[in-house]
């Protein structure tokens, strides 16, 4: 458990850092996939099997592939950028904010260690329970999610197709 935690954490952190620092866009996405895989591994370690499958299916199978497609549609195929166009205008402000927030969160977590007062659980939830919960207690959010996803689907198609329609 412990070794696995550290290995997976290293994978996630390295993946995340590479994803936002690399120059080549496709390399960025590949490191993002590494990050997603690490998070999926963490879910497995936390006994959330279903979330593991959902993470791999949605993030690696759908979101990452979608981003790859977007890169192919917007950039030169190589995906490389020039030397000076990586960072935005006020990059120092962004980095400063990130560092401050990291420090704040770190201080808050250090101040009230929750671990001492909580026992560690060692069971796993079956998919059956999740399925029942989804169509019983969480029915309304579940249906709303369906509506939201449909709206997002149609919206994405409309936004991406806009220019083509105008030309006709």
């Amino acid at each position: 458990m412990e070794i696995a935690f550290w290995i997976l954490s290293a994978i996630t952190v390295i993946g995340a850092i590479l994803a936002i620092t690399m120059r080549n866009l496709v390399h960025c996405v590949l490191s993002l996939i590494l990050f997603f895989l690490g998070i999926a591994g963490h879910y497995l370690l936390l006994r959330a099997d279903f979330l593991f499958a959902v993470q791999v299916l949605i993030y690696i199978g759908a979101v990452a592939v979608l981003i790859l497609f977007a890169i192919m549609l917007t950039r030169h195929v190589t995906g490389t950028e020039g030397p000076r166009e990586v960072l935005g205008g006020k990059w120092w402000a962004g980095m400063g904010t990130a560092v401050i927030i990291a420090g704040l969160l770190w201080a808050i977590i250090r101040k009230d260690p929750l671990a001492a007062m909580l026992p560690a659980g060692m069971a796993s939830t079956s998919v059956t329970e999740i399925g029942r919960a989804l169509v019983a207690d969480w029915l309304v959010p579940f249906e709303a999610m369906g509506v939201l996803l449909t709206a997002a689907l149609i919206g994405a198609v409309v936004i991406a197709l806009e220019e083509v329609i105008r030309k006709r």
Partner: protein
Amino acid sequence: MNVSLDHYLMLSAFLFAIGLCGALSRKNAIIVLMGIEIMFNAGILNFVAFWHYKYFAVLTAQMFAIFAISIAAAESAIGLALVIAVYRHYQSIDVDEMRSLKG
């Protein structure tokens, strides 16, 4: 030393900061979106860690995680469609160049 909830909270705080850094300081719109995805994942990891260590019998955290993942998928689809639309207009996806409100 066992792995505790605090470890997960710190990991996810760290990941959140990395994602924020990427979203705020990179110029490329797609990388900004990727930073947002990293922040999303850090938050969801928090939910799952809390579920594992505290509310084990209650499924609320897992449900939140599932809904958050679906919303993230919808968000990335819309975001990328916007990126493509913006690219068609400006021939560039640098967030610094999207300054005018006129179409």
